[in-house]
Structure formats: C-alpha cells, structure tokens
C-alpha cells in the first residue's frame, strides 16, 4: 500500500518537476507563471494595461497575416456556394425587386418628414461613422466577436455600435491603439435594449451563442399580439449607447421568442463603427 502511494508521489513529482533534455522550464514553474498571468490580467494597473495593449496589437496583426490562407479558403467555399444557389437567389431577388421601388419612394418621403419633425422639436440625431475592416473573424465556440482595424487613434470608444450596411451587428467591448474588438449580437453576453415594431413593445435582445437571438425582459403576454404579424426588432436607444431605430432582426418563432438577425455574421468584411449625439447635446 505504502509502495503504491510512493510510486504515485514519485510519478507526480517527476511529472511536475522533472525537465526533459529540451525543456527549459519545469511544468510547475509554468503553471505558477500562468496563474500569475491570470491574476495580473485581473488587475487594472496602468503598466499591465499597456503591456496587454502591446501584446494584443502584435498578436492581432500576426493572426491576421497567419489567417490569410484560411480566409482565402473560406472565400472560395462561400463563392462556390453562391454559384450553387444562383437560380434560387435570383428568384428571391426578383420577388424582392418588385416591392423595393415603391418602398424606396415611401422611405425617402418618411425620412424627410421625420427629419423635419425632429428639427421642430430640436431633437436631431447626429451620428459619426468610422469605416473599419474586419481583421479577425474566428466565430469561436467560446466567444462570438470580431477584431476590427480601428482603435483609439481613430477615436473608437467602448460601447460604440457596429453596423453592417444598415443592420446592427454588435458593440465595441475592447479598444487598443490601432484595433478593437466588437462583441457580436449572437454572443451569450450581448444584451441590446430594443423595441419590437409595429406593436411598440420594449424588450432586450440577448445572444444565445448560436446564430439567432432571443427576446428577454418584456411583457408576459407579448406573444399574443404577434400572431400572423411580421415583427421587426430595432434598437430602442434606451441606455443612450445606440441610436434608436437601427434594425436588428426579425422574429421568426414568436412562441419561443426567437429572433433571426438581419446580418450574416460569418460574412462580415467591412463594417461601420457608429457613435451618435442627440441635437443639443455636447
């Protein structure tokens, strides 16, 4: 019995402390070092923040370069897929095109009218847009985020909205000198205050970790009014982070409160980082 325990202790000691010919550090040293790094990451000292920024700058750039072959492969796969679906997508586009001309005219009129009315009540919305390229788009199973090529030098700040064409895709959660990280709407940690139209119901759209979101913190009986209606979720502007009225997604399954995002997060190449000010605000 004692021999068995001795063997176990010897094996453990050997595993943690013994160095092979080419190993410069023992496992135990490196385990302690990694624990030390985890603790340091948690502290908000200026020096540590600068070191973290430096490491991130270098690694993001390197990762972008190393990912070039994989990104090319992804692009080829997606192009092939597009070719395969050509006829189907053509039919779809044809249907969409029929209505779009009428909607465009209506939209132009409503936009002008809205602008005039906002000016009357001195509530004009001035937004500032920064165009950014997606550097790293890993769609990791752990955290749904993208790295963008604009940072503090381009006046990007934490909390700014990230928009693909006109659709909201996420918000900035980390800013470095020349790049930043945006948390996508699909991430579990993403919570966006929104309004469900046309019924004007306030809700929070949360990410699920998959490519759809879910409705939370809303009226208990909200599903009853949704039957046979097309429900679109827009940003409500509550909390002051996002401009009100940015389209987020469409409700596809009201019984489960599931929402499909308008933007395809796997196909993001260029996005806009948007900040806004209400009229009269400094």
């Amino acid at each position: 019995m004692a021999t068995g325990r001795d063997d176990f202790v010897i094996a453990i000691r050997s595993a943690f402390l013994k160095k092979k010919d080419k190993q410069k550090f023992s496992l135990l040293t490196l385990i302690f070092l990694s624990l030390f790094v985890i603790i340091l990451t948690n502290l908000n000292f200026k020096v540590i923040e600068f070191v973290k920024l430096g490491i991130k700058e270098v690694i993001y750039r390197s990762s972008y370069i190393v990912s070039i072959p994989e990104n090319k492969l992804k692009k080829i796969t997606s192009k092939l897929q597009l070719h395969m679906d050509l006829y189907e997508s053509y039919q779809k586009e044809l249907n969409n095109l029929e209505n779009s001309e009428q909607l465009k005219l209506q939209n132009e009129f409503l936009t002008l009218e809205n602008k005039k009315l906002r000016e009357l009540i001195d509530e004009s919305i001035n937004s500032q847009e920064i165009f950014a390229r997606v550097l790293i788009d890993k769609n990791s199973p752990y955290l749904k985020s993208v790295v963008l090529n604009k940072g503090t030098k381009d006046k990007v700040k934490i909390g700014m909205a990230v928009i693909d064409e006109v659709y909201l895709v996420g918000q900035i959660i980390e800013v470095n000198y020349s790049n930043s990280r945006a948390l996508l709407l699909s991430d579990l940690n993403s919570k966006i205050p929104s309004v469900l139209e046309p019924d004007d119901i306030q809700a929070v759209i949360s990410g699920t970790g998959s490519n759809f979101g879910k409705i939370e913190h809303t009226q208990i009986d909200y599903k009853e009014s949704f039957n046979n209606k097309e429900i679109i979720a827009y940003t409500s502007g509550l909390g002051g982070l996002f401009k009100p009225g940015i389209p987020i997604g469409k409700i596809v399954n009201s019984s489960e409160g599931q929402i499909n995002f308008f933007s395809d997060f796997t196909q993001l190449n260029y996005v806009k980082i948007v900040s806004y000010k209400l009229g009269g605000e400094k």
Partner: protein
Amino acid sequence: MSSLNKSSFLRIFLSYLPIIMLFFSVFNEFDFNYLKLDYFAFNFVHLLIFFWTLRNPDQLGYLAIFFAGIINDVVIGIPIGISSFCYLILCSVTAYIRNITLSPNFMKDWISLLFTILLINSIQVIILDLVFLINVDYTNYLINSGFTFLFYPIFFLLFNFLNERISYQKND
C-alpha cells in the same frame, strides 16, 4: 550534396512541424467547420498537445505551449493566461501517464484524453463563469469535448505517422 541538404532541411522542418502546427492553429483558431454545421467544433490544439507531450515531448516544449496559450487567449478574446493554464494541466496529465506507463496503449490514451479534456474544459468554464463572470455555453463546451474525443483516432494516425517520420529522419 544536394540530397544531403534536402535531407537535412526535411529533418529540421519535420522536427519543428508540431510547433509550427501549434502556433498556426492558435493564431487561426480554426475549427475545420467549413460546412457550417451547427455545434460542430473540436479543439485541434488539445489533440496536438495531448499526442505530442505524451508520445514525443522533445518535439513540443512546455514554454512554447505556454506562449501558444497566451496567443490563443488574445485571439479568442478571453482573459490572458487561462488557455496556458489549461494546456499546462493537459501536459501534466500526459507527463503523469508517461511516467506510470511502461508500454503505450492507444485505448488507454484515448480514455485518458476524455477525462483530461473534460477536466480542463471544466476548469476553463469555472474560471470564466465564476471568476471573470463571462457567460459561456455549457452545451458548446460539452459538444466540443465530445468531438475532440471522437476525432482523436484520426489525428492519432496522422501524428503517429509524422512521429515515425521524425524518428526515422533523426536516426537516418
């Protein structure tokens, strides 16, 4: 002369291949999911570290694994140090198995891989969820662990072939 040079280049390239693969995969964070199947993902880095630190630890240094973990954390956006810690736990399990095993056995390795990845994924989830208060999808982690376990035999064959080539080149 030319064949000698070629052979020496090949030897050096093969001996560094595990490290190249490790760094390439952490910089890329690829999951081989080009078919975009829901929930399909496996951890290539775990398989790579498990195999090489178990079968031929001279080809994959612990310091390189530590740095690979740091890079992985930055790329996927989780607090720095967590992946390094998990990778080194994986290394300590393989070092222990190596010490208590006289003759390597694939089935025993495979079963111990399952326990090891469940252990390190649990540690990662605990640190992320309880210490850093980052919400994580447990299902994703569980499925990822499952696929990583299932894919081990395929990568075992590939890595074993590579390991034999490295040994052959060394002894040549």
